[in-house]
């Protein structure tokens, strides 16, 4: 016992605080929302501890708990179709993405396809654009007055080529803006699949296409399936696209959950939808892990095998044209936004009627506050995640704290909108009345992005040998002082890379911002969203461009840092 006490040092205190943080801001909200899905009324667990009256009413609510809400999934048409549509959307998107990416992945991994670098570079565009901006870009292109529609009509087409406000529109956005998530793992899978088997097949006289279908592709299948599952989860959790594009009669889980809470304050309904979202996302996340377990496509160790690349002219050219045609679409979408932001007006024409910088002037005078808010909130989340992630990786790497490791990866499977609902539900009354404060917003951003930060810091932490830290302790430093003066500075590169990533994703964050941001703390993403809803398209476009440029600059810095590290 004495032993226990003497080892209760500063570090232990930090560990307790971190557990407390996750307990209050992650587990408690998720548990609460789960309970509400039974009671149908808000549950105040924290209040039940501090106040006996609340405890009394909580107990009453529990006594009336039922499976009503769960039955509603099947009896309530809206809920049922929301689940159905969401699953359908996610399945379609992942299938289309996979089929679309196979030729590109093969081209990059196994051929001498021309313009490989250009294609790879263009593939980064979708990753830096928040989906609600991409969705908006699709409106500019495919909408009633869009330039694609113009071209389509002048070629003799009737109406719109594709209605952006439809399931097809949502699929279009998600396919073209999520495909890089699948592409790179698939490239890795194609690179890894055993070349000697292919050569054997070719030696036996098989044709190229035969070899591909019966040898190359089957070998890459685990990688492909895991990519499909990843896309499924990403599409299923995406809020930005559906909230902009889903028409009134198209129910999707994320949108429906948002409406239940923001429109009707129907706690029970929001809770059950949240529970379903989390369960589905967690299930697919788990499936994906099952497929990648033991197969680390990202970092193949040792010397890469010298592979013979396919250089048949006809094949590589076709692949190159096909790949360029696909990766050019996100670029066109972004260019459309840029043009819109510079346009005086832009009707149903291929180009704007005139050009002006006045929209930028407007946002830099009247919306400066939103930009500031975004930066302050992102900085807050950055600082908080740097501190937490540094200590978490310390505990995980040095003390084998697998519980913390698990806890920090929970946010990966909780869709943003689900997490937002859980937070609102939990913190909208005393004793911790935080809904509507910047603090809760920062905490929410932090928890949501912590897994990425932890991954980054954990890598550098693993590279620091244990005896360096022991040396510091041996020289008289307490473990906490050693962590601050030795481990901290040595982890700086990992921390820098990770924190830029956090900053970027917070600026891009949609669902949490829309759900939780109070009016006086509205970040850019919320401002753009509201502008689109109000029909102020030109300022929305200008603000989007500013947002993307900020992200681009930070991304470039982050790449710089991680390159220097290597």
């Amino acid at each position, binding site marked *: 016992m004495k032993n226990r006490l003497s*080892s209760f040092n500063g570090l232990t205190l930090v560990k307790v605080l971190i557990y407390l943080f996750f307990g209050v801001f992650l587990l408690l909200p998720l548990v609460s929302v789960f309970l509400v899905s039974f009671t149908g009324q808000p549950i105040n667990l924290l209040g039940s501890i501090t106040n006996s009256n609340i405890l009394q009413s909580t107990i009453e609510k529990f006594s009336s708990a039922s499976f009503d809400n769960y039955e509603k999934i099947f009896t309530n048409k809206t809920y049922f179709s929301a689940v159905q549509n969401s699953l359908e959307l996610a399945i379609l998107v992942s299938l289309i993405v996979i089929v679309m990416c196979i030729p590109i992945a093969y081209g990059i991994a196994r051929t001498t396809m021309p313009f490989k670098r250009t294609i790879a570079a263009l593939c980064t565009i979708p990753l830096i654009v928040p989906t609600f901006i991409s969705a908006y870009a699709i409106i500019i292109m495919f909408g009633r007055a869009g330039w694609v529609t113009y071209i389509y009509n002048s070629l003799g087409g009737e109406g719109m080529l594709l209605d952006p406000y439809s399931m097809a529109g949502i699929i279009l956005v998600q396919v073209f803006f999520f495909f890089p998530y699948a592409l790179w793992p698939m490239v890795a899978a194609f690179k890894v699949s055993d070349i000697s088997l292919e050569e054997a097949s070719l030696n036996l006289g098989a044709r190229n296409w035969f070899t591909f279908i019966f040898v190359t592709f089957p070998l890459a299948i685990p990688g492909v399936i895991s990519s499909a599952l990843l896309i499924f989860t990403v599409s299923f959790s995406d809020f930005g696209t559906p909230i902009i594009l889903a028409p009134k009669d198209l129910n999707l889980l994320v949108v429906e959950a948002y409406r239940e809470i923001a429109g009707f304050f129907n706690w029970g309904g929001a809770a059950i939808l949240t529970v379903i979202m989390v369960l589905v996302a967690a299930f697919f996340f788990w499936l994906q892990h099952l497929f990648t377990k033991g197969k680390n496509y990202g970092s193949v160790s040792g010397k890469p095998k010298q592979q013979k690349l396919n250089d048949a002219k006809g094949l590589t050219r076709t692949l190159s044209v096909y790949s360029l045609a696909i990766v050019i679409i996100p670029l066109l979408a972004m260019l459309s936004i840029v043009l819109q932001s510079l346009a005086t007006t832009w009707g149903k024409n291929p180009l704007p009627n005139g050009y002006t910088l006045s929209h930028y002037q407007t946002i830099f005078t009247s919306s400066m506050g939103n930009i500031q808010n975004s930066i302050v909130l992102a900085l807050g989340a950055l600082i908080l995640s740097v501190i937490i992630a540094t200590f978490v990786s310390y505990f995980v790497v040095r003390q084998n704290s697998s519980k913390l490791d698990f806890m920090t990866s929970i946010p990966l499977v909780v869709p943003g909108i689900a997490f937002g609902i859980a937070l609102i539900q939990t913190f909208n009354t005393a004793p911790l009345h935080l809904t509507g404060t910047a603090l809760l917003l920062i905490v929410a951003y932090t928890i949501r992005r912590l897994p990425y930060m932890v991954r980054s810091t954990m890598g550098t932490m693993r590279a620091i040998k244990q*005896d*360096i830290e022991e040396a510091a302790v*041996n020289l*008289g430093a307490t473990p906490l002082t050693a962590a601050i003066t030795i481990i901290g500075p040595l982890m700086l590169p990992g921390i820098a890379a990770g924190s830029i990533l956090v900053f970027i994703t917070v600026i891009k964050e949609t669902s949490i911002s829309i759900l939780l941001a109070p009016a006086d703390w509205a970040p850019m993403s919320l401002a753009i969203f509201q502008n689109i809803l109000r029909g102020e398209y030109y300022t929305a476009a200008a603000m989007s461009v500013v947002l993307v440029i900020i992200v681009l600059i930070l991304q470039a810095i982050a790449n710089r840092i991680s390159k220097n590290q290597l």
Partner: protein
Amino acid sequence: MGSVKVSELTKEFSGVHALKNVNLDIQEGEFFALLGPSGCGKTTTMRCIAGFEQPTSGIIQIGETKVNHIPPNKRNCGMVFQSYALFPHMNVFENVAYSLNIKQLNSSNMAAKLPIYLRLLNRKLGKYPKPIEQKVMEILQYVELDKHATRLTSELSGGQQQRVALARALVMEPAVLLMDEPLSNLDQKLRHSMRNTIRRIQQDLGITTIFVTHDQEEAMSMADRVAVMDSGEVKQIGTPIELYSRPSTPFIANFVGTSNVLKGTVVGQENGYSVVKGHGFLIKSTNHVEQKEVNVIVRPENIKAFKPGTISSDELTNMIEGTVLVSTYLGSIVRYDIKVEEYQLVVDTTFVPGEAILTEGEKVQLTIDPERVLLI
């Protein structure tokens, strides 16, 4: 102040007994070596003393104080790590100054802590006080590194890094200096000169030193006393000469230098000699032991080899005949592997220029001075 006493130290790692009832009594100012094969528990013993491992049972005392419950940062043991564990983001000066900074940090109030933290994080953020600077430069001069004070440790040679690690441990004036195989990362030549450097510094400062090594030559040439360990147990403690001349087990006889070990039975006493009979030999020893079954230990240099018929009559005690299997010329000595019945003996003879070396297959007569025959 600087003595170290370890009593009945036992350490278990999830079922594995790394240490079993280790007892050490190290005098103040002594240079004490822990010697043993890989995995025998040397590092674990040292880490228990430094406080990085909690003993499963047993007592550790530094000076008169029991330190079992004192955390490692308060034990005042200077440790030199096998990998040196220098702080890669600090230069030589800052590495050495670290413990002095920490000492100042611990003894100052809240407001005064900040500048110390700042200069610990980055040298440009704070000035070092004169006394610290002086002390660091002094010790750097002592290990002949004062000219490299502003270099990053990655820009130093292995031997220089080793001296930084030593200076860093010494500057805090530790009660005990712990070194875990400090020379194993150096090349042969440097190892020899560092042996002398470490021994000189230890003598100069009179600091109690515990030195871990698996190299018997290192332990024997540097230490005042050596503890030989095997599979978690201390097998024998003694001065190098005691260990060499009176090893307590065949394992030690073989680990500390080379030995010939023959099994035999004591068959009687004769003129003050014990007579031991083995498979095909009869040997006399001045040694007397209680038990009947014994190990006969003879060092290679204590066996003399003669061509048959050249032995003078006064050397005829303990004469054995054998055949040369291999002869190896090692410079000042010639080493023979000689087959005697079922045994293979190692024999070292001084090489005398002009004298012929016995060749393979040649018959040979061996004699052993009974005083050099050890029975255990």
